[in-house]
């Protein structure tokens, strides 16, 4: 890639304080995202995808988190070494974020207006009247009917889907260059999920922002992302353009994820699931972290920690046996 990425995460390792010392939550995570690009990050819960997303804006609790190594470059600066004060200008300004649970992500005792106006005044210095006009526009942009009246209501009067729209309105208030969406549709009804994704896509076109979409749902990824990062147990295990990932998955774990997506075409074949579950952060697994659940595990997988290797154009995988098979083919 020759273009200068909008954001690049380089060898990021993040640790949390546990009952007995520091526990590594994500290790050596690297990815980049270009201007206007959509990146999907996929994995089961506990894979480290949300940890990675929250790390970009350093939103983990300060006392119990250590950004042990790496850098997060954005506009030529490292977000990890910025002062809190500088970082606050980025948060909600150039980089905005929406979260999984819209029911609990809005402040229950502040009106919608107060919550949308806040970033407008902080980052753009708008007067209250101007901020209010802009807030109504934003609510209209996220397709909330009767925005002029809704704006003075409290969150508990809105449905889940409406609240997520409000969250999106808050996030795009200052026309960010990057929107990080952490499982934005997980807590919503299926019909609403589609609407929210569509809204995100439309807004992205209007504003020209990049989106990092975090999800456990490969179906959502297929619809939305251009490139995909697959995470497992705190590591990136595969990275590829979306078509390549679905057509030629290069990691057994990705196979499993794809098989677990219900398909409407084809026969009524059984939904397969990946046996076992993601290991606890503190558990030490020698070799490849996926090997206890992997059907194709070999001796080498139990001995050596695999590296992330190129297996095709813009395609990386952390499964040496697959990479070797591909090289041989």
């Amino acid at each position: 890639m020759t273009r200068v990425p909008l954001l690049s995460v380089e060898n990021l390792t993040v640790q949390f304080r546990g009952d007995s010392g520091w526990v590594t939550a994500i290790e050596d995570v690297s990815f980049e995202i270009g201007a206007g690009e959509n990146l999907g990050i996929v994995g089961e819960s506990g894979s480290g995808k949300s940890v990675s997303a929250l790390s970009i804006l350093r939103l983990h609790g300060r006392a119990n988190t250590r950004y042990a190594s790496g850098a997060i470059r954005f506009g030529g600066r490292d977000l990890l070494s910025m002062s809190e004060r500088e970082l606050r200008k980025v948060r909600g300004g150039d980089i905005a974020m929406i979260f999984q649970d819209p029911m609990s992500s809005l402040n229950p005792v502040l009106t919608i207006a107060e919550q949308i106006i806040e970033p407008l005044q902080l980052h753009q210095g708008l007067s209250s009247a101007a901020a209010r006009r802009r807030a109504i526009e934003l609510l209209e942009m996220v397709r909330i009917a009767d925005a002029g009246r809704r704006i003075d209501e409290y969150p508990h009067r809105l449905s889940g889907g409406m609240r997520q729209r409000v969250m999106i309105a808050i996030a795009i208030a200052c026309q960010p260059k990057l929107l990080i969406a952490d499982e934005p549709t997980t807590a919503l009804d299926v019909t609403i999920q589609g609407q929210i994704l569509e809204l995100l896509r439309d807004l992205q076109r209007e504003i020209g922002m990049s989106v990092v979409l975090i999800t456990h749902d490969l179906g959502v990824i297929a619809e939305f992302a251009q490139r995909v990062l697959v995470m497992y147990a705190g590591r990136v295990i595969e990275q590829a353009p979306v078509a390549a990932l679905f057509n030629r998955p290069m990691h057994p774990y990705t196979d499993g994820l794809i098989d677990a997506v219900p398909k409407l075409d084809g026969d009524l074949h059984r939904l397969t699931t990946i046996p076992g579950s993601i290991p606890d952060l503190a558990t030490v697994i020698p070799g490849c972290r996926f090997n206890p659940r992997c059907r194709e595990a070999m001796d080498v997988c139990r001995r050596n920690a695999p590296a992330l290797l190129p297996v095709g154009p813009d395609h990386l995988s952390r499964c040496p046996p697959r990479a070797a098979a591909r090289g041989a083919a």
Partner: protein
Amino acid sequence: MLRIVVIRLIQAIPVLLLIAVMAFILMHLIPGDPAVVIAGADAGPAAVERIRHELGLDRPILEQLLSWLVNLGTGDFGRSLVLNQTVLSAVGERLPVTMSLAMLSLAITLPVGVFLGILAAYFRGSWIDAAVMTLALVGVSVPAFWIGILSVILFSVTLGWFPSAGYAPLLANGPGAWLSSLIQPAFILSLFQIGFLARMTRSGMLDVLDQDFIRTARAKGVSEWRTVGRHAFRNALVGVVTVAGIILSLLIGGSVVIEQVFALPGIGRLVVQAILARDYPLIQGTMLLFGFAFVVINICVDLIYLWVDPRVRYD
């Protein structure tokens, strides 16, 4: 708003009635005979009997209760047996003292307690947190009147900073004298509630600081100060209001003993004197007043909820 107040007051009537009856029964349990007290030690049995008849104490208890309740309905709280004034005027005379004391203590307790509680929650596990929790523990472990006496010895007798006893009415003596007569007892009363309020504020804030919307505020670029003070505290306020109501009741209760230490002529002192003198009408009247204050405080707390928490609706 007004409708809610009226409804609450009407709902409170049975409780107040019950309080009135209990006050009455409680006081008639006292075996001493007020007629003997009033007549004096060397009065003959005839004199005692005459006084007893004048006071209506020779009538059956149920009849006394009923006539007391009927009179209450017309706003007549009766006459004090000892003080030679009506219960209402005795109470009215002393109410400003207790109200001044309670309000001044509340004015000290609320900001200090809330601020300390927020600090303790935000700097959880730090020395500030430990200090607040210790203060809370001391507040429920040390006798207030004892600290009061020690404080008088230190600040009034030895250092001479404050008057050791007595009350200077606001209107007659001006705000300076008024404040200096109250600041020491008010501060001591507060000392015992600040820790409690801080502890409650702390636990409320700890719950809120873990919530998703705090992360949302940070993600918007809101400063820590504003995140804690506006986004978090506005949510913790609901709990703080409840505790503030409890604290006001505790302050009124605590004033009973503190007024005695500082010789403040308030309701607390009045009620203790009344109980010791077997002054039935005065005891019943003041007890009713305490009960009424409790009911009013609860209504105020409910009303403040409406204002603080948009999710609360009384219909």
